Every structure is written in C-alpha cells, then in structure tokens.
C-alpha cells in the first residue's frame, strides 16, 4: 500500500543516512540485509530530509491521499 516513503533498493547502498538523520526516527535497519526500512510510517511528517540527503537518490517521498 502507498505510504509517504518508497525506497528503491536497487539504488540503496545501505549507508544508513536516512536512519541516522530522520527527525522522527521512523526507520529501522534490517538486521539481516543491513537495509533501511520504514517502520513508523504514521509518524512521518514529510520533512524530506531522507529524500534530499540520500547519496543515491534512492528515496521517493510522496503525498499520500490524506495529505492531498
């Protein structure tokens, strides 16, 4: 289902910048893959920090329906 954040794992290099910087701590790092995952999606406030800081531009941030 559509959420505010979509990670393109083909581009993601697991640098963890999104996880480190998120001001609402909505990410976790998957222990096995080392890849970031959004777990607290409902706490996202669309600040866009992960989107703009990702070195591989692997994060897409979208207006979900309720923000529209």
């Amino acid at each position: 289902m559509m959420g505010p954040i979509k990670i393109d794992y083909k581009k993601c290099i697991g640098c963890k910048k999104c996880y480190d910087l998120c001001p609402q701590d909505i990410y976790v790092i998957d222990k096995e893959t080392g890849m970031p995952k959004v777990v607290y999606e409902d706490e996202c406030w669309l600040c866009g920090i992960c989107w703009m800081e990702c070195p591989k531009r692997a994060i897409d941030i979208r207006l979900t329906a309720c923000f529209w």
Partner: protein
Amino acid sequence: MKLELKPGDYESKFEFPILKLIRQKAEELDISYCAAADIVVPEYQKTVRYRDHEFEHEVMMSNDAEFKQAIQEYYERKE
C-alpha cells in the same frame, strides 16, 4: 482592486526550473539532491535580476496603509 484570476489548476504537472536543475546536477555528479542544491541554488540566485525596490516599496507601503486602516477600523468597531 480586482485581481485577474486564473483557474486554480490542480490537473497539470508543473516543473520548477530550480528543481529541474537540481535533479540534473544530482544525476550528473551522482550525488544527493541536497548536495546538488548546494551547487545549483547559489548560481540560480544570481540569475534573479536586480531587485525591483520601487515595486516592493510600493507594495509594502500600501500593505502598511491598509494594515493601519484595518487596525483603526477594528478598534472603532470595538467601541
């Protein structure tokens, strides 16, 4: 003073010139959008021509006058 309105257009997709440049720079150098903006934004700002101070001053003063009038009317109404 009537404003020339255009329809509120929610249908067409619009692209900001500045964001287009930021995306291009990011792709070109394979960097984050933030890092690309660090390069693009100051350059883009230089393309903004000389500020029209007269225009701004006029708007500002008219805002000021309207504002003061609105304050006065407000207090008159209160009494």
